[in-house]
Structures are given as structure tokens and as C-alpha cells.
């Protein structure tokens, strides 16, 4: 007999949740975000897909110093340098490839960059693809990504966002 009463008490608890959730779902305990329809906005320091920032004339800020490639713990960055036509800048990247499948999203490349040339402020994930090759992001693709936050001052160097 006691067991029946205890079971009924338990059923009351579950019924309370049920009624609460049926009648007013927004205020009730449901924390699920129905993803494709609703998307959470990320915090500003979220590390998303990489991008290469540009100078005002559209050329990459990157000076092919290899700092990011050196610091990368996953060895996912590949850079080939070439001489820059601009006299004040020594080098520029001829090839700049990030393997987003190998990337561990640690953000060390952003920390290491002396020129504020690589950033992870796009607030998006690498989109799904059908082959591994499609996750090799080339220089021009990386340059085409847009930052999600406000653009920092155009002056080169020291533009680290905190």
C-alpha cells in the first residue's frame, strides 16, 4: 500500500513537470535550443573559422614570418613565402593553407601573429564538406572570410583583442 502511495507521489512530480511544460514552455525547464531555427550568438572571444586580414589596399597583412606555422601544435598551417613587390615589406605568402580538419582551435596562431594578420573572430564553424581536400582552406578563401566583431584599427601590429 505504501508503495502505491509513493508511486502516486512520484507520478505527481512527473505530472507537475508535464503540465508546466505543456502549458508554458518558454518559462518552463526546457533549455533545448531548436538549432536550425534558433541560433545562439557566440561570445566575442569565441574561436571560429580562421581568416586572413587585409591591408586597406586588399593585400594580405601577412608577412610570411612563419610564426603561426611554427607555434601551431597541430601542424595545420602551411606557408610558402615569396618576395613582396612593396618595398617596405619584405615577404608575403604565396601559399597559405590551413587544414581545418587538423586544427585544434587553440588560437595560438592568433596569439603568435605579430601583424594581426590571422584571426579567428568569424564566429562560424568550418561548414561540412564531402571530402577531406575541401577542408584545406587556401589563402584567398581565408582572406574572403568576414570578421564578426567590429573591425579593429587599421594600424598594423598590436591589435590583439582582449
Amino acid at each position: 500500500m505504501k508503495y502505491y502511495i509513493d508511486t502516486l507521489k512520484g507520478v505527481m512530480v512527473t505530472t507537475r513537470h508535464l503540465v508546466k511544460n505543456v502549458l508554458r514552455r518558454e518559462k518552463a525547464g526546457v533549455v533545448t535550443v531548436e538549432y536550425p531555427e534558433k541560433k545562439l550568438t557566440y561570445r566575442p572571444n569565441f574561436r571560429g573559422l580562421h581568416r586572413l586580414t587585409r591591408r586597406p589596399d586588399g593585400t594580405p597583412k601577412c608577412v610570411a614570418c612563419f610564426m603561426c606555422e611554427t607555434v601551431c601544435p597541430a601542424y595545420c598551417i602551411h606557408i610558402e613565402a615569396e618576395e613582396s613587390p612593396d618595398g617596405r615589406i619584405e615577404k608575403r605568402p604565396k601559399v597559405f593553407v590551413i587544414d581545418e580538419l587538423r586544427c585544434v582551435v587553440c588560437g595560438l596562431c592568433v596569439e603568435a601573429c605579430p601583424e594581426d594578420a590571422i584571426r579567428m573572430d568569424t564566429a562560424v564553424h568550418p561548414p561540412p564538406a564531402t571530402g577531406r581536400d575541401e577542408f584545406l582552406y587556401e589563402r584567398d578563401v581565408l582572406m574572403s572570410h568576414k570578421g564578426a566583431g567590429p573591425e579593429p584599427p587599421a594600424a598594423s601590429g598590436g591589435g590583439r583583442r582582449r
Partner: protein
Amino acid sequence: MHTALVLLLAAVKAGAILAAAMTAGALLTLVERRLSAMIQDRVGPNRADVTLAGRRFTMGGLLHPMADGVKMLFKEDFIPEGANRFIFVLAPFVVMFFTLATFSVIPFGDVLDLSAIGLGLVPLQIADLNVGLLFAMAVASLAIYGTVLAGWSSNNKFSLLGGMRAASQLVAYEAVMGLCLVGAVMVFGTASLKGIVDAQAGTVLGFLPRWGVFVQPLAFLIFIVAAIAESKRVPFDIPEGESEIIGYFIEYSGLKFAMFFLGEFIEVALAAIMMTVVFFGGWHIPWVDPANYGTAAPWVIGIAGLAGVFAGAVAAWGHGSRLMGAVIALGGCGAVCAAGALAFAPLPGWIAGCGVAAAQVLVFVGKAAVLTWLQFMVRWTLPRFRFDQLLAIGWKKLVPWSLANIVLTGAVLLWVTS
């Protein structure tokens, strides 16, 4: 009346009840998932959709049973190596067949007088056996063979163990179920389900409906436990134990697995229906004398319609399913209109009779729905029993109680009649 007409009527009734049972089983899979989600503060399945004119319609997840059915249909139909192919294929059919066969003796409503249009008296029941209760018990216990055969024929020791657990559990609770129904048969004086329902009209002590639950409360408490155990669901789901202890249908896939699964949900509905028939007065409208059902029917249909409108409003407002909400609300409004017509319009007697029958079936389905809901709530409230606890509850608690119930009922009957 012509024999062919009788056969045709029986076939129509059987088809309607079969369709209703299968639909109920499919819908209950969705109800189970949505209900458990609501209980556990989740959202539940709401993704299956159709796109009409560029808009997505999910209908509150109502398409999930259909999507599941299509998925199950196209899954690989796997038969393990070394399995007894014939019995392996037979087992799910055994479960389904005997579960559905039980519906043939369930009275869903009173006898409907259609002699005005040449159909004679139509009982809303496929067959009124004078041993209907025994037939239901016997056929339901034959369904156990399906689980045991499935466990044995799979050539898998885990499924064999699951089948053995199912056998010992179901035998224990089958005995309990039979014994606690003995008291009900003693009180109502018949084993025909129609007779049992008829005996539950009127009131006891002046204010309680003369239902089995009020004249046989102990039997009801025992029966609901046994019924949940019979349907092999939590807290008695040791035969299956999908999540950790492997159950008897481990080797089944595709549509055969779906048949076991669907059979289980139909068993839940069947347990609720048996409880409705034996303990909740079947299709009787509570507190209304059977002679006055003609005046009560519009009220029942109208209240059901208003409930439909309310459910539609909740569905549309709370869960973003505008289409389903609109459909339910429209159906409810239609029912309200029908109730109004039934109450005020001068209708031929047989249409009014159909209205009464509809009200009876609505009352029946409503009672069964509440009892199904109760079973679902218990299923999502309690954790699973240990196997020794389960057998101890069955043999050491419920069997003596139901025996005591028989003795008590006999004593009270003697005292009342003498």
C-alpha cells in the same frame, strides 16, 4: 437478416477496430516520446516534416510515426546465422496476432439499433463470447509465446536469457491477473465482457458509479500492476532492458522489430481497455441512467468537442504547430455542432442512436486514454525493479492479495445476498 450482410458487418467492425488499434499503437509511440520529453523538460521529436507550398509543416511531430514506419520498412531484414528461420519469422506475428485478437471481444459501445435502415441490431463489439474475459486472458497469454519463441529462435544466448526472463515474469503476472479478475467475475456474475459492462450501470451507495474500481478496489490495484508487468514496460521491463540488459528481440531488425515494438504499445492500450471494461464501467456514461443516454449524448459529444478545441488551441499556441492546432480545433468545433444538432434538431431515431453510440465510444476511449496516460506516467516515474524483487512482488505479494480478495469478495457477497 441475410448471412452475407452479417458477415459484411462483422468484417467492417473488425476492419475498423484493427485500423483503430494499429493507429493507436503508432500514435502511442509518438505520445510516449513527446510525453517523456515533456516530463523530462526536453522538447521531443518535432523534426519530421512535409513541405507544402514552400512552408514546413511538422504538425507537432505527428509525422514521426509515419517516418518511423517508412524507415523500418526499408531497413535490412536480418536473420542471424543458425537461427530457426521459420520460428524466427513467426515470433513477431504471434505477438501481433494475439495482441490484436484480444480486441475481438472488447465491447466499445452498446447495441446500436439500425433496423430502420435494414441493418438490424448492431452490437459495437465483434463477438460477444460468454467467456469473453477468459478468452481475453487466454489470448493475451498466448502472446507470451511470441516473446519466448523470439528469444529462443534467435540463436543468441542473450536473447534466450531475455526470453526466459520474459517467460518467468509473464507467467507470474498472468497468474496474478487471472486471480484478481476472479473477484470481478464473482461480483458481476458473468464472464462475458458485455455482461460485465452491463452490470456496471447505475450507482452503489447512492453516489458512486457502480464501477469495478469501486466494488473491487483491491482487484483494481492488483490488476494495474499486473497489467503494466504484462506489457513488459518500465518498471517491469527486465525481459527487454533495451538500454543495458539485452532483451529477447536483440536479433530483430526492420519491420519485425517494429512489430514487437508496436505490439508492446498496443498491449499498453489493451491493458487500459481491459481496465476500462472491467473496472471503469466500459462505455457507461457515469452518473447517467442508461435510459437517459439519449439526452446525455449531446453533452458528452459537446464536452469532447470543447476539449478538442482546447487541445487544438494548446497545440497551436504552446508548441508552434499551427496546422495541427487548427485541425484539432476544427474537429472539435464540428463535434460541438454535431452535439447541438443532436440536442435540438428533430433527427430520425437511428441517427440519434448513432449519436448515442458515438458518445459511448467517446466515453470509452476517454477512459482508456486516461488509463493509458496513467501507465505512461508510471513508466516515466519509476526505475526498474530487480528481477528477484519483481518475482517477489508477483508471487509473494500480489498472489496472496488477490487470493485474499477472492475470499473477501465471496464473504461480502454471501453477507449481502443472505
